[in-house]
């Protein structure tokens, strides 16, 4: 019988929630990496026992953790778990993210725009998102702050920047959003291994069609009235992008304000906010079997990062946008003031698609019926930063 494994990153550790295909009873393990911020955990599609995790701290910096047994044990790549380290030259560099300053890109990648409009040096702060390769368990991409994309081909032991992204002509114009200048979304196209879509707050979306060597902004159709040129090539605060792997040319975006849709892999976008009560938000995801069924959690505003009207409502569109219905069964409908962050929603691939999301209040909700009804798996975790789910045979 199929099982699901939900990987939850929180402000104070990671948790793993497991259930059978009914998704009614859950085993909870954790906290793993207690006391650390776990920005993201994600399993390899090619080997579900391989899980990567981004563990960060304002004191101690970045750590990459890897499990090869489905989250039971963890180690920093290059430093096997439970083995006493041997004297000698340091081996593990799994947390070494050094921006390419070699000139390989043909440009000196030195500064980006700061909040006050001046130029500011690029400074690595943390890994926001880990995206394992679709085919190779040892290949994984990392989206980091300050915005850049790195790739490891040895299971996370060593990382190399794909510097063509920062080297794009617009790089010096990128500037941080309120949460920092983070590369938070990485989408790998299952139909075209050369195609990668990423998103940066607050630069916008970019696409590579050559495996990450070169990139182009894909922000046509976005309108951001809070920036000097509302239709600028870059500068848009894209919060998240989602894709159904069966239809990779169609992308859905939750922008700062506005829910958007592209039918040409990001070459152009149109707004599909429709009848949403507010179109500010962070998460967006797509049903795993119905590519026109999408989910968002509207947030009141950019000044009030909690759900609208004190009600936790997931909105579902079965028409690819514009027409939305509120999903409320099992969710608190009064006195609720939580947020749902950009990487904190996921869908499984069971016949009846399961939807999962985590809140800033520490709840992780699951729906085993595509959103019709919800149940909390856990209610009192630390604030949830990310939710991913693995569907296991």
């Amino acid at each position, binding site marked *: 019988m199929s099982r699901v494994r939900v990987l939850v990153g929180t402000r104070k550790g990671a948790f793993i929630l497991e259930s059978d295909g009914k998704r009614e009873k859950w085993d909870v393990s954790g906290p793993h990496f207690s006391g650390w911020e776990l920005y993201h955990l994600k399993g390899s599609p090619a080997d579900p026992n391989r899980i990567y995790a981004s563990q960060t701290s*304002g*004191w*101690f910096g970045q750590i990459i953790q890897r499990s090869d047994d489905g989250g039971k044990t963890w180690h920093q790549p290059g430093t096997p778990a439970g083995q006493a380290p041997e004297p000698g030259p340091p081996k*593990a560099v799994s947390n070494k993210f050094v921006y390419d300053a070699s000139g390989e890109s043909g440009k000196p990648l030195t500064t980006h725009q700061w909040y006050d409009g001046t130029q500011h040096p690029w400074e690595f702060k943390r890994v926001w998102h880990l995206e394992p390769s679709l085919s190779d368990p040892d290949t994984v991409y990392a989206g980091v702050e300050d915005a850049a994309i790195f790739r490891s081909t040895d299971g996370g032991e060593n990382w190399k920047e794909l510097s063509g992204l920062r080297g794009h002509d617009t790089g010096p114009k990128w500037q941080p959003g309120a949460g920092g200048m983070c590369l938070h979304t990485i989408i790998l196209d299952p139909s075209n291994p050369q195609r990668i879509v990423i998103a940066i707050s607050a630069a916008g979306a970019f696409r590579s069609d050559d495996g990450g060597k070169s990139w182009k902004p894909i922000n046509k159709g976005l309108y951001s009235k809070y920036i000097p040129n509302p239709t600028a090539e870059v500068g848009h605060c894209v919060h998240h992008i989602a894709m159904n792997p069966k239809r990779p040319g169609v992308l859905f975006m939750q922008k700062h304000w506005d829910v958007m849709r592209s039918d040409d892999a990001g070459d152009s976008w149109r707004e599909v906010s429709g009848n949403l009560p507010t179109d500010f938000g962070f998460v967006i995801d797509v049903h795993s079997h119905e590519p026109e069924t999408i989910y968002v959690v509207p947030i009141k505003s950019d000044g009030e990062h909690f759900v609208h009207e004190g009600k936790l409502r997931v909105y579902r569109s079965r028409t690819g946008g514009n027409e939305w219905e509120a999903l409320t069964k099992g969710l608190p409908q009064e006195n609720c003031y939580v947020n749902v962050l950009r990487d904190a929603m996921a869908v499984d691939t069971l016949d009846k698609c399961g939807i999962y999301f985590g809140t800033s209040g520490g709840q992780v909700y699951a729906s085993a019926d595509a959103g019709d009804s919800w149940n909390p798996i856990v209610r009192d975790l630390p604030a949830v930063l990310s939710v991913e789910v693995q569907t296991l045979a």
Partner: protein
Amino acid sequence: MIRVELPQHLRTLAHVGREVTLEVEGPVTQRSVLDALEALYPMLRGTIRDHDTLKRRAFLRFFACEQDLSHEAPDSPLPEAVASGKEVFLIIGAIAGG
């Protein structure tokens, strides 16, 4: 023999207890002690000093013999009591926040 005390989170990462002991050849300085520490426990690389610049991370402090040594030059000799193993070289996470 040099004695180094680590903050709790770094003990967890390195799979060690509160205090570790190191052998340092040559002058006993912040740099030589941290080099020896990272050689023995490579998983600590980048958590105390920046990978590239080897500068102390902002929210960590170094103490020994009731002195704050955080702003001492990395190649300055540490107190004799640290070099002899009588006193512990403390790596401490700064109190930050409210």
